């Protein structure tokens, strides 16, 4: 037992003949230690990031004397002005609205695709739809950004008033990016459904749509929601693609087609240009901290919803 885990494993074999009980214990021990170590690494990584972001982000309030409520509710962002102003509400608004809208667009599409793949035409779905969607997941955000810039923005510009940039463009690009996440998780959930459940419903004379609508969707709702949430969190955190199409003016827009900003877009634009430790840089880390806090809140809300759905 005193020996390190790795050595133990290599010695398991010869010992088997002599004692039967010991390798079992060894094996069990190895497994437990290995998996626990992995979890520890994970937790340490997360703790390090949270600690680091918090220590940077809180400096705004401690060293630079900005008030938290001022940051959260301020409408004007002008960190390089004569009197620096740190009002992050436009970014918070932008982040929320783009990712919500993206989820609103992508969630029905993803769920339809999942239903199609599992309930309607599994053969065709597996052969055509699934590979295409997995491929979509592999398209880099940079490429999405440029596709957005060269297709989505000109399209919106020609159809709607305004310059084509803004929350609408950002949401459309994001909805494409989160579609694979939502679809994959929804498909997994639907195909893990016990066969008997569905067959029972059919046997009772329900049509396919009734079965899907009354049985399949309600049963898998928590999992579907998880997919939507994961999609939304990806939309929350996405930086480069959104930054290219949203316009980045630090204001709350009056329409979906007016230049807006998200937390990530302003971090992307300004982080590299500011020196570490300056007030502007600290403020950006505060935005990252808000992003982190918002994600926490967000996950909690969904947990709550899930629990209610399970009842």
């Amino acid at each position, binding site marked *: 037992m005193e020996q390190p*885990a*790795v050595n133990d*494993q*290599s010695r398991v074999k010869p010992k088997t003949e002599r004692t039967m009980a010991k390798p079992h214990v060894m094996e069990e021990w*190895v497994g437990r230690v*290995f998996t626990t*170590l*992995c979890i*520890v*690494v994970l937790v*340490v990584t997360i703790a390090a990031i949270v600690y680091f972001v918090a220590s940077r982000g809180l400096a705004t309030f401690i060293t630079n004397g900005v008030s938290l409520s001022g940051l959260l509710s301020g409408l004007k*962002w*002008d*960190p*390089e*002005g*004569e009197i620096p102003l740190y009002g992050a509400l436009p970014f918070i608004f932008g982040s929320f609205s783009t990712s919500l809208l993206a989820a609103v667009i992508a969630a029905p599409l993803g769920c339809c695709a999942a239903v199609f793949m599992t309930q309607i035409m599994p053969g065709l779905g597996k052969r055509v739809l699934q590979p295409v969607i997995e491929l979509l997941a592999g398209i880099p955000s940079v490429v999405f950004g440029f596709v957005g*810039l*060269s297709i989505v*923005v*000109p399209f919106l*510009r020609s159809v709607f008033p305004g*310059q*084509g*940039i803004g929350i609408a463009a950002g949401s459309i690009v994001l909805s494409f990016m989160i579609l694979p996440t939502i679809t994959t998780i929804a498909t997994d959930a639907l195909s893990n459904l016990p066969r008997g459940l569905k067959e029972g419903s059919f046997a009772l004379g329900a049509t396919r749509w009734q079965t899907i609508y009354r049985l399949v969707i309600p049963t898998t709702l928590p999992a579907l929601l998880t997919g939507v949430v994961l999609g939304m969190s990806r939309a929350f955190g996405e930086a480069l693609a959104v*930054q*290219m199409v949203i*316009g*980045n*003016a*630090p*204001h709350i*827009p*009056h329409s979906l087609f*007016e*230049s807006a900003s998200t937390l990530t877009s*302003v971090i*992307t*634009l*300004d*982080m*590299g*240009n*500011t*020196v*570490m*430790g*300056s*007030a*502007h*840089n600290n403020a950006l880390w505060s935005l990252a901290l808000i992003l982190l806090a918002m994600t926490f809140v967000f996950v909690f809300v969904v947990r709550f919803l899930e629990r209610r759905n399970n009842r």
Partner: protein
Amino acid sequence: MKKALFIVVALMLTIGLAACGSNNGGNGNTTNNGTTNTGNATNAGGNNAGGDAALSGSILASGSTALQPLVDQVSKKFMEDSKYSGITVQVQGGGSGTGLTQVEAGQANIGNSDIFAEEKFVDADADKAKELVDHQVAVVAMAAVVNKSVTVDNLTKAQLVDIFTGKVTNWKEVGGEDEKITIINRPSSSGTRKTFEKYALGTASQDIAGSIQEDASGTVKKYVTDTPGAIGYLALSYLDDTVKTVKYEGVEPKEENIVAGTYPIWAYEHMYTKGEPDAVTKAFLDYMVSDEVQNADVVELGYIPVGKMQVKRDAAGNITK
């Protein structure tokens, strides 16, 4: 079959533990900050092919993305030169702020910046700028550019100020057709924006609602090309026939005008070192300002050689002949 799985698991385990181990080892290392640099400098030591006089080591230059293409190109040429075969130069982007932060903290040998360090390190950090030694390697000039739909081809300083502070929102008010002006600005932290505000506008521009802000020259150019009625500003090296270049106060953004000081929208490209550079870094910086580079790569990439300038400028913007 089982054996295969066993081997796979054992392998994963070993690697996993190794990874855990290396992570933990790194964690304990946090206090040992200063050694990064030495590690860098000796990295390529084994590669020293020449005699005793030959320099060897490795240089890390990081910072401004606008300066990166030039440094990148020169570094390739530098490393191909047989005299410097022992030296490895790494060029990284990340932005002027990152470059200055890194060079100040001793993590990079050279910090590339679009603007004077004094303008970035302000207030409490002002002392940090004093530790850095400035090496001006090129001059970059900027021009206001407009979408091709715009008929205006000259803008005065007052007109530009009106546009970029939101007083004028239609091209007809500055002598063009009836078309809405869309501003493509840079983010407030951008060195390019600071230069443009300081030397073209003489005042800060406003983040007007509905304006677009992009940091990368390529994206700015794309927006100006695509958006009717758009105005933005680009370094001369990015100008081509997809956008329309506007004269400033009647002066064309051309090399002879800039060199003579009649066209004011230009700035130095800086390569900062912390204190005086060591021999290896100095060799690279000297190479950077040598005629071989200044008259070839610098010009090729659309910059203006520092030595050609008939006027000089300091951090506060004062011009001397």
